[in-house]
């Protein structure tokens, strides 16, 4: 079975201090703030990616174990899906 793919929705965004990112989808009335590694994941989601693909790409940037990275990616995607920043296909 193929894995779900995630992609961000059209949005406007600004970098905030300390690596945070403020993002507002065109269809939303309020912005969402991303912090930690979430802005990096958001940047990668300009194209469709599966969780495995995201983990593989992030492993090249971070020294954490694949399990830790996968946990972080799933948490970030759950939060982004709930706030309608990303869509799943």
């Amino acid at each position, binding site marked *: 079975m193929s894995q779900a793919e995630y992609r961000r929705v*059209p*949005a*406007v*965004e*600004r*970098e*905030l*201090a*300390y690596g945070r990112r*403020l993002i*507002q989808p*065109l269809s939303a009335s*309020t*912005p969402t*703030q991303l912090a930690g590694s979430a802005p990096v994941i958001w940047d990668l989601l300009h194209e469709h990616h599966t969780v495995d693909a995201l983990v593989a790409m992030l492993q090249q940037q971070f020294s954490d174990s694949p399990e830790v990275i996968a946990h972080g990616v799933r948490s970030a995607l759950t939060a982004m899906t709930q706030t309608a920043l990303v869509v799943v296909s």
Partner: protein
Amino acid sequence: MISAAQIARNVAALGFGNSRIAPIDSAMNDEVIDELRTQRVEGVAVSGVLDGSIEADAEFVERIIQRHDETMAQTLRVEIAAVRASEILAAAGISHRLLKGASLAHTIARNPSERSFRDVDVLVRGDSIDGAIDLFESKGAVRLHRQLRPGFDARFGKSVTMLLDDIEVDVHRLLCPGPFGVRMRPNELFFIDSTFELAGEQIPTLDPTDHLVHACYHAALGSAEPALVNLRDIALLAHGPFDEERFEDTIDRWRARAVIQRAVRLVERTISVELPEVLGRYRYTQVDKTERGWIDLYTVDDPRGRFAALAPATFHALRPIDRPAFARAVGFPDGVPPATRVRSILYRRK
């Protein structure tokens, strides 16, 4: 002690030779933060505290970052309105250019987070403005001031202010009102296609040369004391790549040397940024008495007083054939009984 106003001016000039600002006195934190926000350079200040070019205490850093977060949230709302306005016009095939705000944030600011904005400015051709207004109204936008007389917007108006999703959208025909507006040739701003990407869309805008022309007009003719962000825009554009020959040619053909002179002097006197010679030479350019008088009219800060002050100069700058219609619209606008209008004019003269 250095004043809050001077600190804001130094912040507006960050990146242009001055790489550090004197430490901010803790007792002035409130005053400085308010001034930075008023002058719309708080984003530059945040960059400054983060890269060490501004020294301030922890309270200042925390508060300026919090204020900037709030400003960016509001800026994103406006930016979404800009995307929507552009989409509405593009879908109807109306050629347009997004001006200032979002355009400059994404094309000339060091980082879009350094350039906040409060409204949307979009330029359309004069023969499209009535269609654009009707279109925006059909999408729920509300016009804030009614047209003086039918046809006034397309023939004499500078812009029409509308509310779209509670965000102010100024639909421009010209870059400025009054006699200098009469002299400009706004359709030339559609000769060059330039775009920037926003939310995955290609948004039409001016190229850097025309942005520089507009930034000078806005700073010189927009108010008596332009916000520092507008002077920083000129400095950023002037020090970036632009077509010097076309800039000079435009200013000559639009007979706007007095406008550029005021803009250059404002930048150099207020934020002490030296501009490239192509602009610097306007500092002492010959400006005739009439144009100097016109410049003074633009510095009336009350918008109604400013319109009244500019009307006679506009009348004289117009072609004789256009003057009767302009005079009729300004003197006796639709919906105002002539007797009331006469009383109002007589009262103003007392």
